[in-house]
């Protein structure tokens, strides 16, 4: 048996675009809870801009849907399509480092690590105090 999840996507959402990106995640994801995909902005770029990052294995249809007109999925019929469409317009897939004006995505093989993707996005985690 081979998994259908053949890719890993790591997505860097600038702080200002988190609400719209969560609506896009609701469309591209598989769960009604996917509007909680981006929460805390716990990564930063070299300039100190803040990002919420998500990383997950995906089916190939993820990339296909990301470039198509959006429709509400069965698991979220009342989603905010306008917000999702705004986020979709900001998608930059395998286009280099993150910046505040785009939602940068690294899409690669499923066995690639999230850490390699985050490095390719030019991001580092914001240090946390030891509890």
């Amino acid at each position, binding site marked *: 048996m081979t998994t259908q999840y053949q890719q890993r996507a790591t997505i860097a959402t600038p702080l200002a675009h988190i609400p719209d990106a969560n609506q896009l995640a609701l469309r591209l994801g598989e769960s009604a809870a996917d509007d909680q995909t981006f929460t805390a902005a716990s990564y930063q770029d070299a300039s100190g801009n803040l990002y919420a990052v998500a990383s997950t294995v995906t089916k190939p249809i993820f990339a296909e849907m990301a470039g198509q007109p959006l429709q509400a999925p069965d698991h979220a019929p009342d989603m905010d399509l306008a917000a999702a469409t705004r986020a979709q317009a900001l998608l930059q897939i395998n286009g280099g480092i993150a910046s505040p004006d785009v939602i940068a995505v690294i899409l690669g093989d499923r066995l690639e690590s999230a850490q390699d993707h985050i490095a390719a996005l030019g991001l580092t985690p914001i240090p946390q105090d030891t*509890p």
Partner: protein
Amino acid sequence: MLNFGLIGRRRSDPLAALIAQLFGNAEQGAFYIPRPIVNGVQSLFQDSAGTVPVTADGDPGGKMLDQSPNSINASQSVSAERPVYTLANGLDFLLFDEVDDRMLFPFIAGDADNFVFSIAVTPEVAIDSNPRYFGLVGTGINLQCGYINDSGIIFTRVANTTYNTGSEVVLGNTYVISHIVQNGIPSIRINAVNKNFSAGGDPTANSFFSNTGVLGAGYESTSNKLQGKIHAALFRYGSITESQLSDIDTYFASVAGVTL
């Protein structure tokens, strides 16, 4: 002779025996084995509702059934936060990506003075002295959790105090780690050996999950999540014997490929 070879020759099942030993007297807790099928029952699912079974290496894990009689199932409803079921070198585990993966289960109140949280885990990274959490069971000051820092020090938090070992763990290797409280006295056991430890700070618990148990993380919405593998985990309220701890060590080592 009919039934020759069957009667009286049924293999003993070490998992069933361990579950019966630990939970046979209505003890509270849960026992997780991240394997698609456990004892003939589909036990790992791609979605949190438990409708799509995990069947292949690489599938996301959205729901993991509790193998104890308590039905405290672990789940993750957000697609991106599901760890990945992996089968490698004959070993089953959930792979956590450090970014957002975690499995959640309901907090169960119990006797915080008599408790064990055991985990078979391969921690792979701890950066810049930021600890990485294996898991968390509890709430407020009655919090039991385990984590590691980049020096291979294992921490456990019990009530409102942190305890830590010396540098015991090499990142990338696999260990069976138990965080134990008996009669209010904590101890830390690694690969069947009780370790020396010392009391640390007096932390607050405000930013931890509330009323939620977690595997693969500790905080609700910050970093400090696990990058690594979880092969098995359990928590259980009640007194525990050395023999029971030894059986946990033996079983967890067997599923994680650890030589004790």
